[in-house]
């Protein structure tokens, strides 16, 4: 992961010297690789048509938090595209971007969203429908480690929120539910992709909990024959925020290109590419066009249930937090 970031840096530095054209480094997380592979050429074409300029875009992918940390430690990213706001908040804490970064772009700087869904084996033999089913004794559930993966964190929060919001729900019920689910996890992988490998290739577990867009990528990779996607009645809205890294773009003089690069995410072309990659678009018209692809799921945002990411991390994922407590009781 680090190495990849380093390569990105080296590539960025080299090309910045070799090419006269502007070079943008987009530091992103693992699963976004496929999206930006489609998005970057579309942007370059549109940008060239509009301004006549050529831009080169470098991508760096890795674990979300590790990537954010690399940028905070000096990786010269022009833009950062993450899967949770707390990773970008880190840059604000370090003074690389203003604290109100989210308000600079539409939809609180979230161009598209996803949600957490269940993958079950063909025919859904264990009749998994809801979060409560995941806590049934004897069931095996694959979830990546919430401590090291945004994917795992969203899953944890989705389960917690649904425990809280179910009829007669309470903090205590939510805690019991989440503890029951994690008791059923035989392998805690480091990230979403590793969890996919465990479930699909090692054939371990009855349920894989992951992002909707990851589930669709699995379908493309492995075919649709061996599993089904189950949409729980209530889930979390996974928001993928983006930001310009002010300190870097001002130094490199690439602010204009970087801003255009991110703004283009909200264009109907950008939104369509997102939808094609099974990311739920913000644009109503595009969303309507891809209606069939995105079944309705009732979702809640992290902010609405937990206040803020900072509060979430402090209460649930910090050392000695609820997640640690769940495990020490075993």
């Amino acid at each position: 992961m680090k190495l990849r970031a380093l390569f990105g840096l080296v590539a960025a530095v080299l090309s910045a010297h070799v090419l006269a054209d502007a070079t943008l480094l987009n530091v992103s997380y693992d699963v976004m690789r496929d999206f930006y592979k489609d998005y970057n050429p579309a942007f370059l074409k549109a940008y060239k048509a509009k301004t006549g300029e050529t831009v080169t875009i470098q991508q760096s992918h890795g674990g979300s938090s590790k990537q954010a940390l690399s940028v905070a430690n000096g990786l010269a990213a022009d833009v950062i595209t993450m899967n949770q706001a707390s990773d970008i908040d880190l840059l604000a804490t370090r003074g690389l971007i203003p604290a109100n970064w989210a308000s600079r772009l539409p939809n609180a700087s979230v161009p598209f969203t996803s949600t957490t869904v269940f993958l079950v084996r063909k025919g859904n033999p264990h009749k998994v429908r809801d979060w409560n089913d995941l806590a049934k004794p004897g069931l095996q559930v694959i979830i990546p480690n919430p401590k090291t993966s945004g994917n795992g964190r969203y899953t944890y929060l989705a389960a917690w929120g649904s425990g809280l919001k179910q009829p007669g729900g309470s903090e205590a019920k939510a805690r019991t539910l989440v503890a029951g689910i994690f008791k059923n996890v035989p392998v805690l992988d480091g990230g979403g992709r590793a969890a996919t490998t465990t479930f699909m290739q090692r054939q371990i577990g009855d349920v894989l909990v992951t992002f909707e867009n990851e589930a669709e990528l699995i379908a493309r990779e492995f075919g649709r024959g061996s599993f089904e996607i189950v949409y729980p009645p209530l889930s979390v809205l996974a928001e993928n925020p983006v930001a310009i890294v002010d300190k870097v773009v001002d130094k490199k003089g690439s602010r204009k290109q970087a801003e255009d690069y991110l703004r283009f995410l909200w264009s109907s072309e950008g939104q369509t590419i997102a939808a094609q990659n099974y990311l739920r678009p913000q644009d109503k018209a595009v969303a309507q066009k891809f209606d069939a692809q995105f079944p309705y799921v009732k979702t809640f945002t992290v902010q609405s249930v937990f206040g803020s990411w900072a509060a979430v991390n402090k209460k649930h994922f910090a050392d000695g937090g609820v997640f640690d407590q769940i495990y020490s009781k075993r």
Partner: protein
Amino acid sequence: MSTILNLRHSVLPGFRLSFGITLFWLALIVLLPFAALVYSTVGMGWDGFLAAVGSERVMASIRLSFATAGLSALINLVFGFLVAWVLVRYPFPGKRLVDALVDLPFALPTAVAGIALTTLYAPNGWIGQFLAPLGIKVAFTPLGIIVALTFIGLPFVVRTVQPVLEDLEKELEEAATCLGASRWDIFRRVIFPATLPSLITGGTMAFARATGEYGSVIFIAGNIPLVSEIAPLIIVSKLDQFDQQGATAVALVMLGISFVFLLLINLIQWWAARRHGAGR
């Protein structure tokens, strides 16, 4: 300083220059990162340090890391010695190939090794499918960690013992035979003492390498807190929460324990060298 260095005029020229470069190089490559590590934990204070290191999960992971590293080093000592013995003493077709094979764990990126081992030992893998009906689970248990660490540690033992065995004089064994020693006696009293220092060195290197190993273990361990979560993973997950101080605190503790172990092993080696080396 210069008076000390001038006291004994060496026949070899360039001592001062090379000594200076040595000091500078060690400081730059070893001491400086270590100092940075200590420095970044200083700000935490004792309470913060103890809180970061003393939690149940961290303690369990440190125990697991050292226990699995120790066991895998012991396994490597036995089988590494055997491999070295076979490679040195017996001619057989394909020997060069087998010899080269030993270095494979050195060359292979550890993540690749981890994925390959997991594929083999997962319940649906080539080996795992035969172990599963017997109730033996390797992948996603501490046993899997030992397998991975044994894999990466093997060349350390083989490559340190091999040259010593090669240099071992046949005459010593012949003399022992003439003096009426049994084959077991020859091994126990001639071969083993001569190779012991190299065994200790090789075992130590395998152990030290295994305590810090991350790439290969992470895929096969299952990473369940308190059960199969290694200390390097704790460090990485603390970094993922932007808790750099906590991460360095755990790293410092691991370094401290490793240092004590290495010191002990060095003492044993010194003792062994005195005991067996003096007789020669």
